[in-house]
């Protein structure tokens, strides 16, 4: 145990090169994660195709205007399902995906390589951003082509869209990462993660307008980020006419920003304190 630099590596001739950077490896992991995601049909259907199918379905069933606001029901669903789609790409995809990685040995293997741990998370972030971005693009395309959704023309609307998207996807991804430690195995992950997400969609105004919900349920939904994310997206895509549909007759963008930012910070704290690189079986 004397000179480890030279003593233990007699057969090495090449000078030791520098460690690959965390950013480079993060990008490489992002590419691999995304490739694996789209090859795994279950995951694609579960997190990616679900909101798209629902939009086509609801859009076809419910037609017509809402109380003379100039907003159609299908437009309302487009905005709501964009929120649900972003949340799914972050929360559901990561919650189930990381639980799977913990169960199938991915995390253990990676922890045994010189890959910096941050590269794993950078890869997951890229994966989530790609899925969320594609999802929003497809939902918007369906909304525009089939349900007369008008894309906003003002820059300010797109600025709103950008910050709601970034804050929303970040909060959802952090919550999903934290939630991934809850299921005991990959098999139970789909149920443990999806159940609360489905309930949240129903009480957060994705499918059912708040005007038809009891107050206590609205209060519960207001704690979680999905309600605020959807509200932000409605502000972008339904415009001033739609504001009349909100409970407070306003999109409350300030509060949207505040609640989502609080979830980003809370989610980060949860991740840092609870993330496990080992499965429960590994002790």
């Amino acid at each position, binding site marked *: 145990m004397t000179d480890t630099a030279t003593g233990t590596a007699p*057969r*090495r001739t090449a000078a030791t*090169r520098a460690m690959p950077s965390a950013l480079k490896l993060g990008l490489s992991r992002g590419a691999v994660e995304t490739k694996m995601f789209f090859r795994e049909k279950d995951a694609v259907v579960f997190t990616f195709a679900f909101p798209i199918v629902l939009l086509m379905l609801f859009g076809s069933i419910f037609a017509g205007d809402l109380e003379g606001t100039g907003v159609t029901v299908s437009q309302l669903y487009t905005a709501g399902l964009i929120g649900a789609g972003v949340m799914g790409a972050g929360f559901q995809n990561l919650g189930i995906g990381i639980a799977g990685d913990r169960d199938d*040995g991915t995390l253990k293997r990676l922890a*045994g390589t010189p890959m910096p741990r941050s590269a794993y998370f950078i890869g997951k972030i890229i994966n989530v951003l790609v899925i969320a971005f594609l999802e929003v693009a497809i939902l918007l395309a369906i909304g525009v082509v089939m349900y007369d959704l008008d894309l906003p023309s003002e820059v300010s609307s797109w600025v709103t869209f950008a910050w709601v998207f970034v804050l929303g996807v970040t909060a959802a991804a952090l919550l999903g990462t934290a939630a991934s430690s809850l299921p005991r195995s990959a098999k139970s992950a789909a149920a443990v993660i999806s159940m609360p997400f489905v309930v949240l969609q129903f009480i957060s105004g994705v499918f059912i307008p708040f005007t038809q919900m009891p107050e206590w349920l609205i209060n519960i939904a207001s704690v979680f980020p999905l309600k605020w994310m959807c509200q932000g997206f409605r502000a972008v895509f339904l415009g001033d006419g739609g504001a009349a549909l909100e409970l407070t007759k306003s999109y409350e963008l300030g509060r949207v920003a505040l609640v989502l930012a609080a979830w980003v910070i809370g989610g980060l704290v949860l991740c840092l304190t609870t993330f496990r690189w080992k499965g429960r079986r590994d002790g």
Partner: protein
Amino acid sequence: MTNAIEVRGLTKRYGDVQAVSGIDLDISQGEVFAILGPNGAGKSTTVEILEGYRKRDSGEVAVLGVDPARPTREWRSRIGIVLQSANDAAELSVRETVRHFAGYYPNPRDPDEVIAAVGLTESANKRVRQLSGGQRRRVDVALGVLGDPELIFLDEPTTGFDPEARRQFWELIEGLAHNGSTIVLTTHYLDEAEALADRVAVIAGGRIVAEGEPATLGGRATAKAVVTWQDGSVETDTPTETVLELSRRYEGEVPGLAVARPTLEDIYLKLIEAPRD
């Protein structure tokens, strides 16, 4: 001589269970070292502490001169770990997987050469999910040796293999050892330890109960030989004399003659019986 691994007084406890209770170990550079022991003997815990996966309770450990409780990327790049059971990266092809993992190391071996070395060239474009169990283990080995490690950990590498696959696997390990890598191997198969290892340690009840070359482990070389023939058998320190005498008695060929030393398995079973409480 430099030791690849030095362990002094290692202990580890899980709740009420003392998994490792005072292990000392020196494994020198370039050695193939096998760790044997029944399930729950502390074998995996010991190896996982050496690999930097687990924290120890007490004792001193140096792996390639570094405390594995504080693993650095540089240290990780010098060791290779072949995991016992993993089903990850199932949707990538063998080549995609190996190429991706090569990016983690500062001086990786050529991915295609590594794939060839583990005998997977023909399956290189197959998804890992489609591989047989034996082929899957070969991917694990490929990923373990990809960084050109000085030290390789193999955890029960041939469990579930058919006999032919095991022989081929042994050749692969011998090739790695020939390269000068230190290899630490845990196994349930005594013939595997005998075929591959320069030295073996038997762990039972959280302690090392015997350590040495496979041929001499537990007094195996000096143990009495058993000479058997058609009409009897005898335990003796001088089997040659016995055979010569028998040969005179039968005036030439001894019918049904066999001379046997205790097998590694006999010794092993005796060793792990003793300390069980």
